[in-house]
């Protein structure tokens, strides 16, 4: 499962708790209220475990975590830059 799918699954099952929910890669997660701030924190914990990437607090922004695509891009860049 690619990272975007993993993120979506986590949000749909663990955070939103609505297994049938359709979630687009560009859907606004935060401003829509679908994910709350604590949800982001949990998601970050999940991503760190999954990818081994360390996410510093300064990078936890809407730009990086506002959508599934944004997160994937952010993580991609992290992995590349090492």
């Amino acid at each position, binding site marked *: 499962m690619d990272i975007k799918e993993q993120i979506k699954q986590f949000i749909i099952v663990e955070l*939103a*708790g609505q297994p049938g929910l359709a979630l687009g890669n560009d859907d606004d997660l935060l401003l829509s209220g679908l994910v709350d701030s*604590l949800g982001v924190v949990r998601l970050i914990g999940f991503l760190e475990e999954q990818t081994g990437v360390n996410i510093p607090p300064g990078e936890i922004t*809407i730009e990086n975590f506002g959508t599934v695509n944004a997160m994937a891009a952010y993580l991609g860049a992290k992995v590349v830059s090492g």
Partner: protein
Amino acid sequence: MVIEKDIIKTNNSDLAAQSNLTRSQFLIWLGQTLAPDAPLYNMIQTFRFEAVLDVEAFQQSWATLVASSDALRTIIEEVDGVPQQRVLDSLPYRLEWVDLRGENDPVRAYQVWLEARRTRLHDNGKRLFDTALVQLGEAHFIWYLNQHHLITDGWSFLLVYRRMAALYEQAIGVTDASTNIVTAMPGYVDYVRHERSFRESAAFAKAEGYWADKLATPTPSLTFYDRIPRTPTHRTERMVCDLGAERTARLKAISGEKGIQILNAELSMYNVLVMLFTAYLHRISGSQQITLGSPFHNRPTPAFKETIGVFIEVCSLRLDVAEDDTFMSLLQKVMKESLNVLRYALPGTSRAEYNRAYEVLLNFVNVTFPPFAGMQPEIEWVHSGYGDRDHALRLQIHDFNGTGSYKLHFDFNTQVFTEPQRELAIQHFLRVVDAFLDNREQPLQGVGLLTADEHIRLVETFNQTAADYPADKTIIHLFEAQTARTPEAPAVSLGATALTYSELNAQANRLAHHLRGMGIRPGMPVALSMEHSLEVVIAILGVLKAGGAYVPIDPTYPPERAQVILDDFGQESIFLTQAHLQAKFAGLKARILTQDSLGQSETDDPSPAAKPEDLAYILYTSGSTGKPKGVMIEHRSLVNYIWWARGQYLDDQVRDFPLFSSLSFDLTVTSIFTPLITGGQIVVYPEESGVRGMSILKVIEEGAVDVIKLTPAHLTLIRAMDFSRTRIKTFIVGGEDFKTELARSISAAFNHQVAIYNEYGPTEATVGCMIQRFDPAESALSVPVGLPVANAQIYVLDAHLNPVPTGVIGEMYIGGDGLARGYLNRPDLTAERFITNPFKAGTRLYKTGDLARWTTGGKLEFLGRADHQVKVGGARIELGEIESRLAAHPQIKESVVTVVHTHRATPEGDLQYCTRCGLASNFPGASYDDQGVCHLCRAYDSYKDRAQAYFKPMTELQALFEQMKAGRNGDYDCVALFSGGKDSTYMVAQLVAAGLKVLTFTLDNGYISEQAKANIRRVAATLKVDHIFGKTPAMNAIFVDSLKQFANVCNGCFKTIYTLAVNLAREKGIRYIVTGLSRGQFFETRLTPEVFQDPNFNVEEIDRSILAARKAYHRRDDVISRELDVDAFRSDALFEDIQFIDFYRYCDVALGDLYAFLDQYVPWVRPSDTGRSTNCLINDLGIYLHKKQRGYHNYALPYSWDVRMGHKQRDEALDELNDIIDETQVKRMMQEIGYTEPNLSDDPSAKRLAAYYVAEGSLTSSDMRGYLSQHLPEFMLPSYFIRLDSLPLTRNGKIDRTALPDPQADRPELASAYQAPETPLETQLAVIWSKALNLAQIGIHDNFFELGGSSLPAIQVIYQVNQRFGIDLPVARFFENPTISQMSAQIEDLLIAQVAGMSDDDAARLLASLQ
């Protein structure tokens, strides 16, 4: 506090592990267990419906809700001491319907109901909620819901409400009854399980690590408005404030902006609120590290979002505020910090120890309540009035009603925030919010916190001081005008010689003409170094008349320092001195002039030369760079001050002032010019051998003046003197912090018939710029500095020149006509200290370096120096000046000078004890004969027999008893003061046996031991007498007052007992009060040796004086007279209506017989829970403080009398006096009664300078002293020289003044070898010296000054010696040869001279008394 922490530490982890509570629940449970009587965790909401409700349906809905919600059915039980939660299968509860419709005023009735209900405690084992529906009208209901925090949180409020609404809608048939709301509700037990298993996870371990790291170093406590809480309390007051729709909308808009918005709107707003609160806390506390707690609700899954229960973790945010932070830069820090915290605010991470990391809490509850069955109730979050006592302030922000305006709930700990301060605090917070909205890029330091009202009050109204004065005149104009008015009046006198105004004027003219001839022009400085004399007054006026500025140089200063000042003038200047001082100053580079060398000159007034803007004088004060700095004062400033002083202190009367203080201190300016422009007289007191201050004793003794200007140190010297012959009407006190206690004792010594003024002002603002008349009712520790004088402005500003709000410490700045021109030849320093006045264009402000703050009463409180300038003995000293002098010594590598406070206590091992009574040598005035018998025992031997006349036979008492019975007009014959001790117990038994109807009275001061109370009750019951425990709510205030005045608690209690007993007697119509004062107490207080010195000793006279003393005692102004009903005492009739009978004046019972009687008839038990033969636990506090402050045990004298009377064995007394006081208990009691232990610095005579240095080679204290005395005046010489291997440093590499060792009470390293005292006289002197110098060991050849003595302790020593030996040892002789051996020889000479004129018997007696 201490106890609580111990419980947490020892039990917390164990208990928590065994308990099935979540961590958060456990902490709440723990908090509640530690404060079982405080409803700290009552989470109360009320919902006001202006609509009709179906009560039945409402009740039914609640029952269904309880049945379906496990949280609401949860109870907490303690199983083997471990809290366990259990969900009850069912919890039958019918929601209470409170019908207030029948009340006259249902709204008021509801408020009363709510007030009582909100503090109702929950029974953990029974139910954790309390709810009711209150009906106020047909269509007016309030649903009251109170849940224990153990089962609810902010989010739960909403869940309970929504469920209730849904169930109600079903119950009234609005919605379909078939929808099963109930089964959709997840249980809290799931979260409990989740939290437990989560605690095993790696994520949790990581979070734990984060918190442990973060909170490993505590941040310093915040001082809110610079106020340290006295006693932590659970009592909190909630003050509610609406932020307002506009502010709320703007905050919301800003928090949505790019760069501010983060993750979601709630978090963004939260960050902004945290930032604002932090900025506010920073500004009111001055702290740069702010730690605040904040609850986060952990509902990570949608199911948990629907679960009722407590999900919060309270976590700490820690913010470092930088000096140059703006709102936006602080916000960036907050954004980062909140993300960190959020990340680790995971379930189960709360810990008791982490909770103590913060004292403030911010709670943003972002919840809006939807309609309830189509109605929109008004929701209120009701405060129980209690909170966690570690929380000084909680700010809760919410908008439950969705009004668009945030509601701010400030929960103030009532011990931290005074009532007026609470109001102001909210205003100050709003000022911060508005400043942010106004300009978010502005520095936090630039935000003005003052409210408009405060600004007007503190900046404008306070400073409206404009007053007319002759601004176009010089001081010489005013003096010449006075001379014209009263040419023949005495202007200045010294002993028998005096000059009239016209004589003084003529002589001053003669000098002025001469000086003009020498080239003196307006504003030119003329040095003047003269002792107090008529000449010096002539000289000052002569210089001024010539147009020059006089520059006083104390004649005791080393010539080196005089030269430094002369060099500052920049030209070869005139040095006016006296013939006998010429030799000392012969080496100076100056034109030395004495008045007797003037020759003939004119005596007419010279033509006026100086203008108001010319200099009148230059005073040199200590300068931090090592050089004294010359403060230049113009005529206009001097005239402004003196004109004001004349109006303030003289009230158009002609008054005489003494000239006794040094001319180089500006306080002396008042004593010279005030009389000279008003027709008064200056009475000159020469300083003896150059000792500053000593002549004040002469001033008082002679009683020849009306007004005295002096320092608190001077007052300390004279406080014990006899003022009966004085004509003093006014004391003007300046130069140093003036303690209320000192003012009170002086005022009392004058029977309050004296005006005492506290005048504040630096030299740079011409003598005085603030004034306050002392009020004996003053409760502050120091006499306030009061109001600005005429044409002066006072500001308290922060480092950015913002006026500080009420309660916050700032620096004092002075503006107005008194401001000096600046410092001579120091434009840099002048520019630094005299700045542009931002409040009054075109004027300047002087930066004082003094700290102060506004009290909520609108007064200015003076708080000491901001820098290293200190005041010792009234003199202003820059420690840096001494340090740079030390640094100039070739052997000294490093040095630092500080002020230390000497302790009075003598080490107990060095004490001598009377071989008969055990009186210790630290008792004031104690002396012992060669058999080691104390002076009191010896004196008692001599009058013991005569004293018997005071005592009366029992038959007289029996006659009195009959008189009492015959005159009874109520239920009782007498009130018996019944302390519960053996003496009063015996007394009461005897009164009962005599057939009297006795009402026994005991003061319950709140600290009577339980055993003693049981005794008292038992005795009263056995003797079948009525008994009253008297109490007063003012007890703590009385303790505090007594501690301040007498350093014990007993004096306060005694007076309270008498006062309450008299009022009781009046109320019951009883005419007699019988006391159980022991015979020892009679001797201690009434039958003192002085009484028997009068050969015509007469008992009636004693009784008369006791009655007079009793009247005065009860009429004295103190806390008791202010707090208790003392009206009755004002009338003399009272003392006839109610008579005091001292039982033991009649009854003489041997101790053995007394005990035997008690054993046989009365079940009296000696208390074992107080540690000594008294009943009172707080006694320990008095003993502790008395020993510490007065240096001896307050029971030393009473016990010595007990021993003398045979009521105690010597060993027993010594044993009881050798008590070990539990300091923890003492401190706890201090907190309880609200007593703050004063700093030892309260005693101005206890302050000393200490020099610490690192040096090479050999360097003794004598060497150091000798070296410094060549350059510095005596008052700047350190008392202690302490050599260190290195100076302690702070982490920043600065010298850590707090880590310097205390000067040891050992003999310092001196040039002279130690030789112990040998003769009795030498030994006695050594005791006196060691007390004054606070040194344990003194050799007879040691120089007093090299031991660290300065003139204040020297004067104390001479005063004591003269008192003790009845001689008049001249001060000058002591100063010439200040060693014990020399002093002892001088005393012997004087005594021999006295003895020569005596009969052999008298001489023998005198000599015996000295042995």
